[in-house]
């Protein structure tokens, strides 16, 4: 009885036991001098009454109730079950449950295994285990609020998108100029083509390509922009992308005026006659660009559409497409600690000699892990995996709290739908009962598995 997060844990098989593990004690030993059956019944009565009225009777009642309509007066046979498998909203619900069952248990078990193995390699494993295990004590309601905050779409508020945009901006240097467009009109040397900006005439080496842009909003004008260079030239193809707008007025259209600034960070492409991109350049602070090592010839110059897209704002975690993966993320956050602690206990029970012997024989850490650790852990991994399947089938609170009301149809799961149908406004107890029975049927194989395993262990 020394299970703690700090230090080695007893293997799970012994955790239930007191002075000696339970089911092993032989029945004949403990049947001497027993009291009369009447006494036994007295001891069992309160529990039997509660289980009978609150658990067993409802199962029987639900089976009958599921065969009747919403009001409970009309017999509909299996009609409610047919609804479960034909209604399009219900099918989304079942599909979501399928995603849950396939994805979540594997993720939790795998992460738990990785955590359990890695915590053996660090000195601060107690702190790590406490941190990862902590969500187990927190209500799923609170976990839901926590993840509503994490998944806020605005990167200035939601930490998930804050991380994503920071990572994205670190690796992508292109600065967006949303809503900017080429100067229009016949005189303009450039035109809009499907959101990109292209030169009307093929560009020639030695003659600067001028690309006038208008409609750059002040907040997107980079601070480092310098006055535009009119005579960008060099050996090869060169030119200038600039903001063709003189503050206060007075400038000439399509001409680089003194007060006009270049647009740095624009991606510029040189296109061959067949439309292939022959070279790419980026504009400097004064808006000038130059294609290095481009063969002689005639090219069209293009500013691809990516220059004009709004800056990256992260993902809509709480939108209809990502909502289920997002909630599974929260589920993994809650349950990884459970898996880690159980697996760590199993790991502690593995004889160290076997691992050491393999290492001395020259096995790599991966081989030791793959060929010895995992096979020896398989009973514990199975327990964790099955527990997680049962938990995913019953998942309710997290979906209910994290999915905003407008997205709940897309995030729906059977356990939640049962509540919605019967109590959350639907008021259809026939369909609700059918969903409850459906849920019971889903966990039934695991009930039978539990009973079988217990019988085997007890006899």
């Amino acid at each position, binding site marked *: 009885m020394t299970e703690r*997060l700090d230090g080695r844990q007893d293997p*799970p098989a012994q955790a239930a*036991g*007191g*002075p000696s593990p*339970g*089911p092993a004690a032989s029945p004949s030993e*403990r049947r001497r*001098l*027993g*009291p009369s*059956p009447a006494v036994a019944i007295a*001891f*069992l009565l*309160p*529990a039997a009454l*509660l289980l009978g009225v609150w658990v*067993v009777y*409802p*199962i029987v009642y*639900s089976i009958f*109730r599921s065969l009747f309509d919403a009001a409970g007066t009309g017999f509909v046979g299996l009609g409610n079950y047919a609804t479960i498998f034909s209604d399009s909203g219900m099918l989304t619900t079942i599909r979501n449950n399928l995603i849950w069952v396939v994805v979540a248990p594997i993720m939790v078990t795998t992460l738990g295994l990785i*955590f359990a193995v*890695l915590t053996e*390699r660090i000195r601060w494993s107690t702190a*790590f285990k406490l941190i*990862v295990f*902590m*969500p*187990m*004590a927190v*209500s799923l*309601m*609170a976990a839901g*609020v*926590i993840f509503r*905050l994490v998944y806020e779409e605005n990167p200035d*508020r939601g*930490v998930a998108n*804050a991380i994503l945009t920071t990572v994205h901006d670190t690796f992508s240097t292109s600065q967006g100029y949303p809503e900017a467009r080429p100067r229009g009109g016949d005189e303009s040397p450039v035109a809009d083509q499907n959101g990109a900006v292209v030169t009307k005439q093929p560009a020639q080496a030695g003659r600067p390509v001028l690309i006038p842009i208008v409609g750059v909003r002040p907040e997107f004008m980079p601070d480092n922009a310098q006055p535009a260079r009119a005579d960008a030239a060099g050996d090869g193809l060169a030119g200038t992308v600039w903001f063709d707008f003189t503050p206060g007025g007075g400038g000439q259209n399509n001409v680089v005026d003194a007060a006009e600034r270049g647009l740095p960070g624009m991606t510029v492409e040189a296109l061959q006659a067949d439309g292939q991109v022959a070279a790419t350049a980026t504009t400097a602070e004064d808006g000038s660009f130059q294609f290095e090592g481009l063969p002689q010839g005639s090219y069209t110059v293009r500013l691809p559409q990516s220059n004009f897209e709004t800056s990256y704002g992260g993902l809509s975690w709480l939108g209809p497409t990502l909502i289920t993966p997002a909630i599974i993320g929260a589920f993994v*956050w809650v349950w*990884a600690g459970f898996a880690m*602690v159980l697996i760590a206990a199993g790991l502690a029970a593995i004889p160290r000699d*076997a691992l050491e012997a393999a290492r001395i*024989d*020259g*096995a790599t850490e991966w081989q030791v892990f793959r060929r010895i650790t995992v096979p*020896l852990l398989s009973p514990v991994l199975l*327990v*964790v995996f099955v*527990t997680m399947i049962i938990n995913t089938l*019953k998942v309710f*609170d997290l979906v209910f709290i994290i999915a905003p*009301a407008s997205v709940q149809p897309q995030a729906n799961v059977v*356990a939640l739908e049962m509540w919605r149908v019967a*109590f959350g406004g639907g008021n259809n107890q026939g369909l609700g009962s059918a969903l*409850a029975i459906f849920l019971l049927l889903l966990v039934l194989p695991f009930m039978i598995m*539990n009973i079988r395993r*217990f*019988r085997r262990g007890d006899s």
Partner: protein
Amino acid sequence: MSTATATAPTGLEAGAPRRSLASKLVDRLGSGAVQVVMVVLGLFWLVPTLGLLVVSMRTTQVNNAEGWWTIFTKPAELTIQNYANLLGSGFTASFWNTVLITVPTTVLVIGIAAMAAYAFAWMDFRGRDTAFLVVVGLLIVPIQIALIPVASLYGAAGIFGSLPGVILFHVAFGLPFAIFLLRNFFVGIPASLLEAARMDGASEWKIFASVVFPLGKPAIASLGIFQFLWVWNDMLIALVFADTGNQPMTKYLQSQMRQFGSNVDILSSGAFMSLIIPLVLFFAFQRYFVQGMMAGSVK
């Protein structure tokens, strides 16, 4: 397990020489990488809760304007105003309702389950093993199955929405796990202790109260903490069976979710209040918590 241990290494190539300096260096670097990975993972698990704490200690205006992580540059913005506001709201009543539901449930589950577990472990009666297998089967029955039938029962009995209704529902669904856990522990009590007591003519009740129950303390502690957290954190049963006057924190907070954006102050501070007692219990009794978890999951 021992056979697997003996055969597994044969699948590996043997005879590699002792570890070279280079491989030791690789190990050292590898351990550095493990440290970094674990720090990152630890942050992933810590940051969401930290975010909740900071958000709960900022005004709505600040929360709407900037992310909670700006706290590292602007610590002066922290305030306990949200918590003070909770005191005057419906949250306080819901906090007490949570206590009023959780404490009686935990006591009742322990008492009723311990009696049944004693009978299952140490009394002889016909159908005992079958009855216990039923309990094992009931371990994972989904709560949903009982919502509709029990709601109509409560309606007929006139206790729909009341605290006793919520408590009794919790007790019933707590029993299978509790009986299972305690029975497995009680079976391990040395038979000689009970036989001695029975020879002395002690009544079964006396044996239960003065021998079995005290000896079962470690298992009862595990069960108690588990049951407490389970009921404290429940939302589904409360949603269906507790009316507004008797609602616990989870249901109260859920009712504030519809306007998440404008209620962030109540929701974040309320959610943090709701998890503070479970966290304290968890840190104080983590040993029993882990024991209960392991005993319950290995079925």
